[in-house]
């Protein structure tokens, strides 16, 4: 009889892309749960809308591109993109905000660049930046943490806020602000206060900063850190990028804080507020848009860390994760070109 022919190796590991993505999604769960606890059901709604939109958009664009739909949808990459975007946007943002963001992420940022593996920018972050620039009001009205607002955002409230706001965006936004269920994020508040001449000390005395780095935010970041450490343990991600981001951010913020504590926030605030941990473990580690070599990844991470600090401290936006990641994405091919490991039997560089 004739036997089957195949190229070596004839065995392979069982860890497939779909499984990797699935595990990434699972590792997001602690963070998502914490976020739900502190900021109410809004996030869950955003996630649902984002995931449905992402799969629909991916299926549509795949059929337009004449690519296999079922097997591609099964790689779970759209799921991860949708989750990251949904987590990043305010829980009570109107539904169309997340829909626009997801469509942009999947169709334009991912598939118009060639689909999974070929996109230059992190789809979730590009979608987030689009929304932040286009709808700054909706994107900066964040729900107050539960204990601060003294009232919970239950599912009905969240549904109402997310789906009934389409007709009158500004009114809803103001209403929400007035009834105290939404407010600026701690980093936003701090920036505003500093610009108004307050010292960090004065600003940090506000109730929003209760806890280590702002109520709720610290816990959420901690949960993402835990999820990230699980991924490291499972070897879904490697340490270089996360280490680069966190160490660079820590060093930069420590310098600033030591130089002038009145106008600079503490390293702790930087590390555990805003989207730092989410970025360090889940966003910047997207291998497609990161550098590939070990050293390159450290450089890539350090770059993001420094950019986060610089934009947070000197830039116009309260948080800087998305911008930092996108800027570093642009540099990734450049880093890859110049940072190559020394091959066995070669003296240096290439």
């Amino acid at each position, binding site marked *: 009889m004739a*036997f089957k022919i195949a190229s070596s*190796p004839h065995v392979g590991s069982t860890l497939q892309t779909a499984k990797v993505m699935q595990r990434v999604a699972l590792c997001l769960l602690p963070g998502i749960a914490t976020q739900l606890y502190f900021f109410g059901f809004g996030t869950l709604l955003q996630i649902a809308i984002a995931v449905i939109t992402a799969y629909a958009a991916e299926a549509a664009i795949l059929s337009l591109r004449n690519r296999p739909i079922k097997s591609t949808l099964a790689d779970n990459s759209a799921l991860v993109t949708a989750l990251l975007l949904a987590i990043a946007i305010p829980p009570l943002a109107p539904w169309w905000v997340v829909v626009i963001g997801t469509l942009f992420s999947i169709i334009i940022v991912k598939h118009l660049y060639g689909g*999974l593996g070929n996109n230059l920018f992190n789809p979730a972050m590009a979608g987030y930046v689009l929304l932040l620039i286009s709808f700054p009001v909706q994107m900066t009205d964040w729900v107050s943490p539960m204990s601060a607002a003294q009232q919970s955002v239950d599912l009905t409230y969240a549904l109402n806020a997310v789906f009934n706001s389409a007709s009158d965006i500004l009114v809803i936004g103001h209403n929400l602000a007035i009834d105290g269920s939404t407010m600026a994020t701690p980093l936003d508040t701090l920036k505003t206060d500093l610009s108004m001449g307050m010292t960090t000390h004065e600003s940090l005395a506000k109730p929003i900063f209760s806890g280590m780095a702002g109520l709720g935010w610290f816990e959420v970041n901690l949960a993402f850190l835990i999820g990230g450490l699980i991924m490291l343990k499972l070897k879904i991600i490697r340490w270089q990028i996360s280490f680069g981001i966190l160490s660079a951010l820590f060093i930069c913020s420590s310098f600033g804080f030591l130089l002038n504590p009145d106008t600079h926030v503490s390293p702790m605030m930087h590390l555990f507020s805003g989207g730092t941990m989410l970025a360090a473990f889940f966003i910047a580690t997207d291998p497609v848009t990161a550098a590939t070599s070990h050293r390159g990844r450290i450089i890539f991470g350090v770059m993001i860390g420094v950019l986060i600090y610089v934009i947070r401290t000197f830039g116009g936006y309260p948080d800087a994760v998305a911008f930092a990641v996108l800027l570093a994405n642009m540099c990734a091919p450049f880093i890859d070109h110049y940072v190559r*490991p020394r091959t066995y039997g070669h003296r240096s560089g290439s």
Partner: protein
Amino acid sequence: MLTLLEQLDKGSLWQSPGGIHPPELKQLSNQQAIGRLPLAKQFVVPIPQVGEQARLLVEVGQTVLKGQVLTEGTGFIYLPVHAPTSGTVTAIKAVASNHASGLPVLSCIIDADGYDNWCDLITSDPAALSNDDIITKIKQAGIAGMGGAAFPTHIKLNTASEIDLVIINGVECEPYITSDDRLMREYSNEILKGIEIIHRLLGPQRIIIAIEDNKPEAAQAMQQAIHLSKLPANSTRVTVIPTKYPSGGEKQLIQIITGKEVPSGCLPSQLGIVVQNVGTAFAIQDAIYSGKPLIERVVTFTGKNIHQPGNYWLPIGTPVAAALELVDFRPSTTQKLIIGGPMMGYAIHDPYVPVLKGTNCVLAPSNEEISPDSDEKACIRCGECAIACPALLLPQQLFWHAKAQEYDKAASFNLQDCIECGCCSYVCPSDIPLVEYYRIAKSALRVEAEEKVLAEQAKLRFEARLQRLEDEKLAREAKAKEAAEKRQANMKSSDKDAVAAAMARIAAKKAAQSNEANLQSIVKHDANDSTGVDKKSAVSAAIARAKAKKAAQSAEQFSIENNATQTPSNTHNPSDSVVEGGISQQNLIAAAVARAKAKKAAQNNQAITSDEAVNGLADSSTSDTDPSLNDKKAKVAAAIAKAKAKKLQQTEIASDSADTEPNEDNSITASANGAMAKKTIADDNTDPAEQDKKARIAAAVAKAKAKKLQQVETSNVESQLSSSSITLEQTPNLDSAVLDKKAKIAAAVAKAKAKKLAQQAEKKD
């Protein structure tokens, strides 16, 4: 800081980057001792080197004995091939090879007779042999590296480099394979004997037997054998290394044992290291002590579809299919049959391929054991491949460029350093057959390099051809020139005169043509044709010839001239060089004149003639070569000189009354030459003391006068001559400004005059 030797003795290990830990599955086949399968009925012995560096020693129908050498050859990498059993050669043909390609290769088909009779074996004691003898014996035994690559062992053992360290590779890092494991367990003493021989040949300071820690029994057996061996104390040790694929790769093993990296594109021997497989050491021992060539090896038959897995001694050339029948192989519908391990082995399509010297394993896995066929998905640049790569490459970048067929870029990422271990493919979450891409890219680069070499060779060839053609052309020209010179040198003076005369005549004609307007009427009379320059010159040439003929005839009628008794053929003309360089008219003229002069001189020397007259002419002719003279005048003079020469010659010939000239034309021209010369001598005799110009003018005028005389149809030659003498005396009075034209006219007239003379001569007859 410990020295390397101290660290080797301590058993220090270094880390090899990358690597993977696939399921080992060695226990499938390493549980029982190496068995022996019944002899196959037919053997296929590939003889790929036949036709290149070897020739076959057997023919179809011949009976061979076990161990009998089948080929004979020379060359560095030639290895003899031996009959694996006794039997009959039934065919010599190309059959499918045991190779990933399965391409047919020339093979010797031997039908076993079942007796398995050995040929005569020469056993020897290595102590009695010189190193060269041992190397020769190893080569004669056809020993090749048994780890898989099958590189001729005698080359590795005959290195020019100083070897400090020999590593005996018993790592066997591929999953499933246990042939070396069993061999070490059961034949450790024999392997050590082989190592002793290697030690003797290479003289290393240390020998390290490297074994992975998943083979403790083998390590123990080898350790015991070291104590029993005759190797120097503390020179040899077993170093157990951690199990990791691909630690058994030569470069990786060197790195683990010594911490050194083999520089890219170099051999380990350049680091003073040689790596030999344990199986090779066993084969060396067999070849030296028993005299047995390498005709059998241990092969692991394993995989869950082989129901009697284990290790078996198999003669080289046993068809895989024949062996599979004996180990209870139950193929599934989508069975893969792998030669080698699951990481680097190749799947074969046709099981009727022979076991080779490097075939260490036949793997028949069930479908659960191997990765299912899955479509390649998009690379997500996760970088797991780079982490797994033992060569520290960036496999995802290599893949990216290889897939885009940017092979040069792939090469810039050191594609050539890829050892094709398969770690990257193993870890790839997107099921990308990375190694396959690299193989394609490598072969494309190889083809490209070969094409480049061929193109370079073609270019060199083309340039060489152009150079050769150029050289040939130059050589031909030089030869032609030489021949021409020789011919010139050997040429009869009459021929030379003829050539010179012809040249001078052409020059004169040209001079005449340039004054066509003035000449026209005269030319009409002379040539009966005034329509064109060409015709005129042709006609004038014809006339000149006719004239010369007439002159000759008349000369024949006249009494024999006293100066014409010499045959001109013996006369060597001293003015050859003028012919060579004579392109300009002036040169031609000068040549003609010089020749005429020479002719005269010759005549002067060889015959007693009117010397003074000749000398006078020679003088005047010589001064004609003065470059200050104007062209036209010179030409006219040349024409005259030439005519004179012709006449002279004609006279000579006439007086000879024998035709010695090679052809008619020459004779005619020569005759004319002679006739003219003679006439001119007569002219010149009348006024030898005249100035150059005047002399020439006089000559011209004489001709003009002759023409006039002709017009009035004077019937007496003597009167003509006297008239010309008179005219010559008158010439000094002529205005120098009109000399040119007149001279030319005179030249034309002279010809006509000569014609008349000839006619008159005829009439005289």
